[in-house]
């Protein structure tokens, strides 16, 4: 989905325009508010905005300028208690939420999607203001995808069937798919609204209630969505949204005894801490963590597509994607040409003011992230990888990093092993299929992978061999709501989106009744 919308040049190179993309491109241009009003800065509990219990706040920064753009309530352990209590009340047996017809739960999600669509231009501007991603991405990718996800889940509540079981003996047995209960959900800063919707969708569809912690860098669109949640008519307490930091606010959610399930999207490092903490109370856990995803380009590919897609796979969203194609393996025969074309493409990449229409790349999210990226670039240089373009900070205001390409990268370089989460592309060389599969899998991660080839057989064999939750063939970053997403190995546990995600939000109850006589 993202790839369809974003790779303009690839589209020109013959990708068929989809109806969705076509309609997006024919729409009137939105009026862009470069400094959108920040309307909601408090915690959302029981459908009301409240101050944090200790009245403390934290600063929210515009990463394009480094300026403070809002002071937002800092959720603490006490606030988590309050939110969990609200969620618990909403989940009480016999409550409005528990008694609601499944289709009515779906209708609320449809309504929320409609309200986000209504306010699309404002929310897109707010997202860009807070996150730094280009406005055209916020407007054409983040907001429409969030809407699509909510609408997808809206169709599920009345379709989640249990089973009647062919049990032996004089019994009648069936399963019910019941909501797990109160879920705690912790989301990151790279796709603030999208990941909020990935979390709200299954939790509402299955009938759970939730306490969501927004990332402390990017709480603004989440808090605005909270207002839309109240407007849509969700009963109080069904969705509670907190802003706060990881150790206190996030930690309190994970540790809370009434929270039955924790869903976390973020780094593998934090994911392990959360997993260990949740294990103490055998909480259900879904984790969507980091990656070092291989992108394998065979000599028999369509080179134009492969170059553009590989560029997109890495640089999209300033390289701040958990599934970024950050190890680009290119077959020896076309290696030099691929490198040369990738460098050309990267040189054209326009970095700058995210509200500028021609901008392809905005700032990184924070000074800290920028420093980390620059440090990894240095490590690449020191280790002997060849820096072909970029490698430095852009300007001295905001957190911009030049689009950077390394060739002659070895598998054991830090830049080929660690998640950079920035605009730094590593191009590696390979000779044979077996070799590249082995090298591609030689990582603790397993989130995504891709293959570029025109050979049907090769496409299937390689995609079967790759140890990753998503494999894209001749495309990258397809995020259709119907497709599951999640990691093998240390890239996470469980799947988001798609029918599979519903399993992570339901408990299966098997009811067995003794009856007088069973027949077929």
């Amino acid at each position, binding site marked *: 989905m993202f790839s369809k919308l974003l790779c303009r040049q690839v589209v020109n190179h013959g990708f068929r325009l989809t109806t969705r993309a076509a309609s997006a491109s024919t729409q009137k241009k939105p009026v862009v508010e470069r400094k959108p009003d920040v309307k909601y800065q408090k915690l959302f509990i029981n459908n009301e905005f409240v101050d944090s219990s200790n009245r403390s706040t934290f600063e929210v920064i515009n990463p394009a300028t480094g300026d403070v753009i809002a002071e937002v309530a800092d959720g603490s352990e006490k606030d988590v208690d309050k939110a969990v209590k609200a969620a618990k009340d909403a989940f009480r047996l016999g409550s409005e939420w528990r008694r609601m017809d*499944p289709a009515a739960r779906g209708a609320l999600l449809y309504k929320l999607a409609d309200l986000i669509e209504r306010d699309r231009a404002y929310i897109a501007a707010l997202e860009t203001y807070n996150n730094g991603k280009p406005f055209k991405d916020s407007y054409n990718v983040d907001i429409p995808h969030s809407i699509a996800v909510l609408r997808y889940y809206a*169709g599920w509540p009345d*379709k989640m*069937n249990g089973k009647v079981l062919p049990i032996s003996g004089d019994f009648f047995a069936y399963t019910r798919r019941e909501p797990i209960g109160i879920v705690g959900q912790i989301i990151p800063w790279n796709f603030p609204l999208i990941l909020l919707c990935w979390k709200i969708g299954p939790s509402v569809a299955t009938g759970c209630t939730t306490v969501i912690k927004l990332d402390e860098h990017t709480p603004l669109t989440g808090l605005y969505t909270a207002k839309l949640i109240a407007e849509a008519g969700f009963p109080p307490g069904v969705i509670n949204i907190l802003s706060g930091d990881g150790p206190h606010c996030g930690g309190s959610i994970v540790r809370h005894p009434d929270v039955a399930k924790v869903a976390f999207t973020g780094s593998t490092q934090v994911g392990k801490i959360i997993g260990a903490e949740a294990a103490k109370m055998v909480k259900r856990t879904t984790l969507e963590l980091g990656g070092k995803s291989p992108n394998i380009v065979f000599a028999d590919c369509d080179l134009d597509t492969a170059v553009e897609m590989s560029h997109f796979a890495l640089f999209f969203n300033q390289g701040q994607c958990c599934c970024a194609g950050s190890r680009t393996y290119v077959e020896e025969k076309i290696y030099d040409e691929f490198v040369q074309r990738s460098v050309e493409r990267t040189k054209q990449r326009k970095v700058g003011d995210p509200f500028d229409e021609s901008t392809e790349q905005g700032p990184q999210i924070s000074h800290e992230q920028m420093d980390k990226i620059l440090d990894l670039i240095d490590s690449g240089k020191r280790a002997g990888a060849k820096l072909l373009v970029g490698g430095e900070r852009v300007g001295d205001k905001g957190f911009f990093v030049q689009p950077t390409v390394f060739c002659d990268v070895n598998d054991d370089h830090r830049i080929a092993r660690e998640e950079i989460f920035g605009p730094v592309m590593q191009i590696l060389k390979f000779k044979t299929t077996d070799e590249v599969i082995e090298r591609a899998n030689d990582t603790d991660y397993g989130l995504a992978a891709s293959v570029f080839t025109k050979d049907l057989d090769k496409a299937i064999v390689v995609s079967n061999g790759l140890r990753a939750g998503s494999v894209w063939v001749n495309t990258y970053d397809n995020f259709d709501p119907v497709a599951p997403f999640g990691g093998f190995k240390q890239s996470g546990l469980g799947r988001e989106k798609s*029918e599979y995600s519903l399993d992570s939000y339901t408990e299966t109850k098997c009811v067995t*009744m003794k009856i007088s006589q069973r027949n077929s």
Partner: protein
Amino acid sequence: LAAGVITKDLSRALQFVEQLQAGSVWVNQYGALQFQAPFGGFKESGHGRELGRYGLAEYYEMSSSDSQARKVEIKYTQIFINNEWHKAANGKTFPVINPSTGEEICQVEEATRVDVDKAVKAARKAFDIESPWRKYEPVARANLMRKFATLLRRDVDYLSKLETLNNGKSVEDSKGDILASADCIDYYAGWVDKITGETIPGGCDQMIFTRHEPIGVCGQIIPWNYPIMMMAWKFGPALACGNVIVLKPAEQTPLTALYCASLIKEAGFPPGVVNVVPGDGPQCGNAISVHEDIDKVAFTGSVEVGKKVQEAAAKSNLKRVSLELGGKSPLIICEDADIDYAVSVAHRAIFTNAAQNCTAGSRTFVHSKIYDEFIARSVELAKKRVVGDPFDPDTEQGPQINDSQFQKILSYIESAKKDGAKLECGGERAGNKGYFIKPTIFSGVKDNMKIAREEIFGPVMSVLKFDSYEEVIKRANGTSFGLGAGVITKDLTRGLTFAQQLQAGSVWVNDYDAVCNQAPFGGFKQSGHGRELGRYGLEAYYEVKTVVIKLV
């Protein structure tokens, strides 16, 4: 007939007023007849009332010239092909009748074989592999469906009046049908991006997967008892799977389907995806069943015609068939039932929609221990049922659909009397205009009587007595039908045993006709094949394609 009391004591006067059994009670006067005040008898002094508003009711309930019926504008009377309106190829039209009056509402273009051919061509073109419809993303299809549902809700006031005018069901019932129809379309819109094929673990040098592909051109033939709802049940799964449609509404009730066709166009469906051909069974319906270029036919109607449809489908191009046919559905009232509740469920089970309901609970089996009381209370309730002008908000039961149904029902009533069943109430026409029949109850009905074996499709409740549960299950299953069944009991084990042993596509425990969009619906035995509604409903609208790729 009347009574009087002379007293100055207010409370005593009111006490007399309450307790005297008479149609008119005069206090401190006598014989005070006035035009405004209804007049008529209790007991053997007569039925009904003259004078006053009540006096009107005796007449207007059957009245055609009701102003509301006249206010309903008829907007579409032609054949809908390729999102355009067409005249019939043979230049003929047929009359559409208002069943409340027997009078003609309008003439509608009569589609026959040539028109069906034209519609199929349009549909085929819309189904071309390169057509916009085939290239739509799933979500785009879902959006069109949701738009259509929104339009149904937008026009619910107009559509419900049109449905009532043409079908005779009460406006309130029509509204309920339309809102349920919109929900059905929304429900299936939600399925569009959730119909998943599978990947299959074949040998290690194989990649095997299935695709669920639309069947193609679907002929859909629907009845007159729930015109809009049957249309929605057909459109929902067919469109969700990406098929194209040639729909034939019943010749008795084409008007709402034609209006809905205009909403299909307004919603933005590409031309040819939905085509509506009004016409009769022998010519238009048959042309669909035998058509060589229709890939699937779905039919809802009588068993007799269902058999013909299946035969024609097999003889022509072996098109896929789904059938939702008649029933003679049992409702079993156990001795432990709450009797008031059971009486109300049984009443609703049979009399809903003037009993023109394929699932009608038309064999009410009642345990001998509560049989007499059940009859007495059911009669009481049936007598209270308000029969009359469907535009009147108080009306519970409108007319039967047409003269031939009306005559058929009356002849069943006669057969029951002859066979020795005891007529407890009703049993005759109501009023003298239109096709109204009084809610009728027979007690002492035996399994071999015609009214206990054949589908009456009219407001006739047949109450049968049983003594043991083994016996009643056998009797309930002793029919060639198997559409619905109900059981009223407080006993868990008994409820589940019945649910297991009754041979019917739907079994309702402590309820009846609990049909909802998520739950499959269809018949065992000669009540049909395939299922409508729910996930199962989709299965009748896709072909499974298995793809095997050898890795070489």
